[in-house]
């Protein structure tokens, strides 16, 4: 169940991006997960859904893109700015 600690790490990074851009909210999160990343995408999504409640990601859908190697990447965000 390390997916929860991975999502925690992702939220730390998203928080940095939100502060750096003075964003009001995150509108979309896009990650890439390889088949050998050691991560189960549906568990990752479940963890994301637990974490995002009442956060800047509350209304941000999570896009998970498949990959063939051990990629485990936060690719991009869509940020709502003032």
């Amino acid at each position, binding site marked *: 169940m390390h997916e929860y600690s*991975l999502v925690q790490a992702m939220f730390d990074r998203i928080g940095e*991006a939100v502060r750096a851009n003075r964003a009001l909210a995150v509108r979309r999160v896009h990650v890439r997960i390889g088949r050998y990343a050691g991560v189960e995408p549906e568990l990752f999504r479940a963890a994301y859904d637990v974490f995002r409640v009442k956060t800047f990601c509350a209304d941000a859908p999570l896009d998970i893109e498949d990959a063939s190697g051990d990629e*485990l990447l936060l690719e991009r965000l*869509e940020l*709502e*700015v003032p």
Partner: protein
Amino acid sequence: MCDSCGCGDSNVVPFEVHERLLAGNDRTAAHNREHFHDHGVIAVNLMGSPGSGKTAVLEATAHALGREARLGVLAGDLATDNDAARIRAAGIVAESITTGSACHLDADMVHRGLHHLPWRTLEYLFIENVGNLVCPAVYDLGQDANVVALSVTEGEDKPLKYPTMFRKADLVLVTKIDLLPQLDVSLDTIERNLKAVMPHPSMLLISSKTGSGIGEWIRWLRGCGTRRLGACAAAAGAGAAL
């Protein structure tokens, strides 16, 4: 203006990240690695299922190598100090990293664990990871080599069921081979399955109980010591490649 998704919302902007989710852990792992290299410490991340014989391997290593080399162990354990206590009884320094409910070690836990060991004086630091064939493979700790213990009692297909773990392994120690006469397990099949998933297949057959294969394991470790820096797999290639 958002040009990437076509939503047309003028207040939404794309922000490219392209960063590993574990970038923070990677930075701490690089810091650990720098410490180890600066002080001439070879760090080995020992992984495997619960009951695969990781602690017994370290006890056997302590008996075989402990008089001629300075060894130490950080032992990841969910709830007890049992593994570290066993290793200390074998004559080498060992400390527990109690993870609570966490199913793996990360680089920060190892860094904090180092504060409780005289690690700068060691030639070899073994990091006994939490018993688990999934999560520990994801986290870089700053090690020179990943070694996976796979006991013959676990059956033949673990490499195929847990490919991420075995893909990351520089060496697989097939443990408890003294039990083979009691089991319906084929070493050829284990070897074939390891070859199917490991980029540089390498395994040693050992029994911590009888001492069989421990000499080869020590030679493999010595190869890590002399070649260093990602060359452990190459060192293994000299004697244990499949």
